[in-house]
């Protein structure tokens, strides 16, 4: 009989074999899309199926897409400097939704309009409820490592 740790490991291996589904979006005030197009290609290269919601995505549309597609995780990419406002508001809405409160949500990009001082928003956004925050001064490999090591999140996962 398998012990608990082995069971968990098998679950993780099974999960890692499965194609991950990702909802990819900007924030409501951000009109940029090159970041989204690159991120889509990048996540696809990592083996993910990507639902790309495009520019200026309102909070409700992001939430509806998560409910509808039931992704493994959510990536928010923003470069207009308003992530510290719109991102914080979005994650608060996601975390107060009973169905979505545990889904991994990651945000990255230009988080504020203060250049190097944008680092101040990393902790702020993590405290607001994001699972990981990537300031644009970082390396994309740290993002990739994070994605690769994401573990199954939900108790209602089909692996149970």
């Amino acid at each position, binding site marked *: 009989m398998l012990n608990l740790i082995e069971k968990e490991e098998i679950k993780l291996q099974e999960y890692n074999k499965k194609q991950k589904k990702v909802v990819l979006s900007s924030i409501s*005030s*951000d*009109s940029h899309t*090159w970041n989204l*197009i690159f991120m889509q290609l990048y996540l696809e290269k990592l083996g993910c199926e990507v639902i790309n919601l495009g*520019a*200026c995505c309102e909070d409700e549309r992001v939430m509806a897409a998560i409910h509808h597609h039931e992704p493994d995780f959510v990536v928010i990419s923003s470069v207009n400097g308003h992530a510290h406002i719109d991102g914080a508001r979005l994650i608060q809405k996601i975390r107060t939704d009973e169905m979505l409160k545990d889904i991994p949500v990651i945000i990255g990009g230009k988080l504020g309009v203060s*250049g190097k001082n944008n680092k101040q928003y990393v902790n702020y956004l993590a405290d607001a409820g994001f699972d990981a925050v990537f300031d644009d001064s970082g390396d994309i490999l740290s993002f990739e490592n994070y994605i690769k090591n994401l573990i199954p999140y939900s108790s209602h996962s089909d692996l149970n």
Partner: protein
Amino acid sequence: MSFSKFVFETHHSGRLTVQPRMGLSSVDEMRQGLLAVRDNALASIGTVTLDSYTRVGDHETARAALQLGSPLNGFPLVAHGADVARSMLDGVQVQHFPVQVRHGSALPQDIFATLIAAGFDATEGGPVSYCLPYGRVPLDRSITAWRECCQMLAEHEAKTGKAIHLESFGGCMLGQLCPPSLLIAISILEGLFFMHHGVRDLSLSYAQQVSFRQDLAAIKVLRGLAERFLHGSRSHVVLYTYMGVFPRTVGGASDLLAQSARLAAASGAMRLIVKTPAEAHRIPTVQENIASLEHASEIYETSPRDLAVDQALVDEIGEEALSLIEAVLNLDADLDKAIAKAFASGLLDVPYCLHDDNANASRAFIDQRGLLRWQSPGRMPIRIGKRQEEQMIDMVDPFAFLGMLKSIERRYDAPYLAAPNPIFVTARAEA
């Protein structure tokens, strides 16, 4: 002096009209910024760039941010209101200093009403160029909104005798990786749209792309087609310094700006909207903007005018642009409907544009000669030569794609970097 008159007089005196992108949340800072742009020896025009909340019509959030003192990425014109904006301009906007509002909105009725009431000289955008690249407003709603806005400008002119200048942003679809023929076709179609709805004082834009030779040919084509299609208007060409991923080094950014000033001189573009070395990192300061205006003006003065163009490129770009424009005009006698139908049917299709009303079946790439070409035109009436087909790259590889997106950054930064940046190495290895 009107916006256009300023630009034409400056051109005839052998100088370049230069303009920053500049938007500050507070009235005092915005006013100080405009004064700094005005009070120098350059032929400069003032810019008030609006913030992202105002652009998407979320004036409540803009007001809340003003009250909290949260910094916005531009001037919240509607939240401040026409009276506040008018008093900000008082004593700033004088005979030799027209001021333009730059906003990026697909539904700009509030913005137009406010900028007209506040007394601004000019604004910009267009039903396609401010809709498809920047949001999710349906194209037909944007077309209706822009028709109303053009009519507001026409009524204002009929009432006061003062024309407010309108610039098409059509030469900048997504800033990069849109081949010149489509940029030109959209600029011309938006110019026609403005004229159909009563605006005759206008300009057509073109954003610097990846090849000086190709850009020079493109602007020649744009000027020729403007003469052919927009007679009865008063128009000039405005050039935007590169709008894509920008060099990160001061030297690289400065060289790219200089190249755009040379392009303005060589092509006969009368006005240049500059970028600064801060572009890759953050919103520039007022002083950085002034330094760029000075640098561009200096380079322009010593650059050759009306350089010889590559006729083969002129022919190719001209043929494609004309084919696109005519295909659209043949779709419907009503231009508004023709434009909507053109996107619905994929006869116009902006590469990499995620908007729901864009077919997104076309693809562009940078070929081995450094020219921006079609990889696939989707359903657009454009033929692709065999030579091009042989040069396709792997478009689904994220780093090959990133390498293309960053080709200008790489080329201009290279002389100033001790070692190539890591993305470059990866892109080359994988390409």
